[in-house]
Each structure stands twice: as C-alpha cells, then as structure tokens.
C-alpha cells in the first residue's frame, strides 16, 4: 500500500502539471485512507481529502468536491493544523458558491476575509487574497435570494469599511439601499461573475437574472403601495406573467410581504408594519427632525 500510495501521488502530480485536475483527483481518491493494514495519520487523511476536493473544484466539479470535503468535515474539528483548516474553509466556501448556496458561501467567505494572521504555517496570507474573499462574499450576497436574511448580511458588509474600497462597492451600496438596479449596472456586475454564477436555470432565466429580478421586485415593494403587473413587467424588464410568478413565490416564501389580485392584475405591497406602527414611525421621524433643528439652533447660539 505504501508503494501504491507513492505511485498514485506521483501520477497525480503529473496530471496536475498537465492541468488534468479531475484525473489527478481520481488518482488520489484511489488511495485507501481507511486501510486496516497500516496506521494513517488523521492530518494526512485530512490533507488528501482537501487536496482531492480542490482538484475537483478546478474542474468546477462541485459534486465530487463536496463528497471529499464532507469526509474532511469529520477530521477538521480535531485538526490543529492551521494551514489545512484554512484550506478546508476556502474549499467549503467555494463548494457552497458553486452549489448556489450563496448566502452560506457569503458568510464563509466573509469569515475568511477577516483572518488576522498574515502567516499561517508556511503560507503567507496576502491582502489581495483577503480582498478577493471579501469581494466573493459581496458577490455571493448580491446573488443570494432577496429577503430578510440577505438584508442582514448586506448590512454587515456595507458597514465594513473595507468594502468601500472594493470595485464592487457601488453595486453593494445600491443593493443595500434597496434601490432598483438598471441594465448597465447589472451588465457591469455580470462581467465580474464566474460561469456558474451566470448559468441558466430551468425557467430560462440565469442565476444572475433571477437575483436581479428578485432584488428589483423587493426594491419596487419599498417604492410602491401597489403596482399593475404590466407596469411591474416593464420595470423589471420581463413578461408580466413571469413577474407575477416570481412575486408570488417570494410572498409564499415570506421573503416579501404582499398580496396578488389576479382579477385586477395588481400586486399590493403590504408594509412590514401596521398602519398605526407606521404612523408611530413617522411621528418618531418628525421628533428626530425637530431635535435636529433645535440642535442646529443651539449651535448657532439661537
């Protein structure tokens, strides 16, 4: 087995050098990590699982990568090896990203971006890598389904000073402020995306399209008390029937409050708060404005 292991590792190295990632991964996956014949160090098992997962990810094979990262999950909690732990985190985040679990991926990327150490084992962590992780977190958050959970993550990212230096910051700002995104902005954002983030879905929309439509629908709900479907379709740039379908899905999933009147072909956006609470909120805003004026007067000695 020792000799077979060495041969497999060497062949995998050769495949890797020729960028045949999946073949390299398959070669390594033939190593018997659970052999009863010899003692296999947990760290060794962990490093192999992670290495195989990373190789599959190079070929965008999230399914096989996930199988090996799941094996690694059982070992990583007992591992003291910081390099392997970091590699595991990055790998896991990328798998979630590829499987379009964007919100979970965003949280993991964000966690990685907050690493304070600049040297882990023999690996140097440079600022670019952290910036890339932060940018990936922002991208994944924007692509995630619009709703309260995403809003919380958006708030965290928007308030992080580092994000203001990212190229992607203007779109983050608009998404956080729940503003409607226009085609030129969406096209500019699309240029930064990876293929799986622009992949087509069964309903003929792409992942990006779906994210942007849902975001714009939520933005519209902040601007309108009610809107006709044909107008909504024009605003979103899609068929009115599709707009209705996406709206109903979001309402059903409790990601947007509202009701649909199919007879009148209108969607009513209910506010999150009852009318009286909304009134309270307005009064509170008025009191705040009054305070600001009084402060202004005091500053000017009036």
């Amino acid at each position, binding site marked *: 087995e020792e000799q077979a292991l060495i041969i497999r590792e060497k062949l995998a190295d050769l495949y890797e050098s020729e960028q045949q990632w999946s073949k390299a991964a398959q070669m390594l996956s033939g190593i018997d990590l659970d052999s009863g014949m010899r003692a296999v160090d947990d760290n060794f098992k962990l490093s192999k699982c992670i290495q195989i997962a990373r190789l599959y990810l190079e070929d965008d094979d999230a399914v096989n990568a996930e199988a090996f990262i799941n094996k690694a999950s059982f070992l990583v909690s007992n591992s003291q090896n910081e390099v392997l732990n970091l590699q595991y985190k990055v790998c896991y985040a990328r798998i979630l990203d590829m499987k379009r679990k964007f919100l979970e991926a965003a949280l993991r990327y964000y966690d990685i971006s907050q690493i304070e150490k600049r040297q882990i084992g023999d690996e140097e962590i440079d600022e670019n890598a952290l910036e890339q992780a932060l940018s990936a977190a922002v991208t994944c958050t924007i692509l995630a389904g619009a709703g309260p959970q995403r809003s919380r993550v958006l708030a965290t990212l928007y308030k992080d000073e580092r994000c203001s230096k990212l190229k992607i910051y203007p779109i983050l700002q608009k998404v956080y402020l729940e503003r*409607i995104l226009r085609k030129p902005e969406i096209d500019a954002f699309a240029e930064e995306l990876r293929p799986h983030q622009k992949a087509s879905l069964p309903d003929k929309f792409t992942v990006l399209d779906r994210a942007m439509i849902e975001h714009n629908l939520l933005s519209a709900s902040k*601007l309108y008390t009610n*809107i*006709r479907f044909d107008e909504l379709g024009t605003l979103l740039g899609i068929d009115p029937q599709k707009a209705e379908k996406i709206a109903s899905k979001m309402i059903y999933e409790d990601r947007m409050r509202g009701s649909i009147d199919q007879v009148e072909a209108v969607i009513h956006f209910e506010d999150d708060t009852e009318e009286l609470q909304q009134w309270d909120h307005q009064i509170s805003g008025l009191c705040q404005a009054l305070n600001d004026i009084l402060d202004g007067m005091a500053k000017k000695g009036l």
Partner: protein
Amino acid sequence: MDIEQKQAEIIDQFVKRASTCKGEALAPIVLEATSNPSLFAFSEILAVPSVAELDGTSNSVYLDVLRLFAHGTWADYKCITGRIPELVPDQVLKLKQLTVLTLAETNKVLPYDSLMQELDVTNVRELEDFLINECMYAGIVRGKLDQLKRCFEVQFAAGRDLRPGQLGNMMLTLSNWLNTSENLLVSIQEKIKWADKMGEFEKKHRKEVEERVEEVKKSLS
C-alpha cells in the same frame, strides 16, 4: 437634515465664489449652481451683495434665474422663457425636482395627473421613473407610489427657500401645533385624573361590598 448637510458645503463654495465676482462674471457661477445635482437652495447665494446688485442692470437675467430656482416652478419658467436664457438639461431636471418640492408643500397626496401636467410628462412610466430616480433616490422626497389611486403619497419632502410672506404662515402653523399639543396634554392630564378617581371609587366600593358581605355572614352564623 441630510440634504442640508450635503448642500451646506456646496452653498459655502458658491457663496465664496460669488463674493469675489461682479456682473457678467457671475453668469457661469449661476449656471453651475443651478445645474449642481446636490444643490437645492439658493437663498444664501441670492443674499451675496454682488448678486443682489445685478438687479436693474443688463445682467439682471442671472438674478432672475437664481430667483426662479429659489422660489419658482417649471410652470413659472414656461411663463418667462423669453426673458431668461434657455435652461440646459441639468437645470431643467433641477427645476422639475424643485417643482415637486413645491407641490408637496401644499398637498400630502399628489395626483399623477397634476404631476404630469406640472412636469410636462406624458406618461405614467416616465413620471414614476422621474419620481423614483430623480426625487426619491436623490433623497429630496420620500413616499409611496399608488398606481391604483394614481397618486404619490409624500412622507417627507426637503424644504425649499422661503418665499416672501411664507414666514407668517409657518409661524401660524407652529403656533397651532403648540396650542393643539398643549390642549392635548391638558386633555390627557384630565383623563389620567378621571381614571385615578374612578380607580379609587372602584376600590372603595369593593371594600364596602366586602364589609357588607362579612356583616351578613356574621349575622347569619
């Protein structure tokens, strides 16, 4: 407050520039000020002596432009188009934004029809895009669009420069607020007293009833 904070620095810059210029040299400053996307107030610039001195001179048109932007609307501009230089697109946009603020002064609910008329907009989509992108996203108004009722419900609108004679109305409104608030507080105070009194009465009555019950029980036993 946000709008005022944002434009405070811009106002200072234009006031400083205007203070150092006279006559025709003020023309580009007026154009820049009335085209600036973040500036919605012009009283301070109007108050600059060199600007006020334009009155009655061959350059008084620039003063008229500033006054239009300080107090006027798009409809006012259409009445005086021959008398002032033609507005550039950025100025047209700003004047229309200011028109919305003026309309919001008198009504909380702005019908689409009157907005379209005031702003020379021919269709609802164009109107809503204008209100969303140029008014709400610019931070000068907040509100909700109602397509069924065809109206814009204003929740907040930034303040424009005061017109002559407007101060009196403002003081009257504040005075009314004060009176209503005081009356309401008195009313609440009376209600509290009444509630306390009723509570005391209730307690006393309950005690009397309990004592009576005890008496009857004793006499029976």
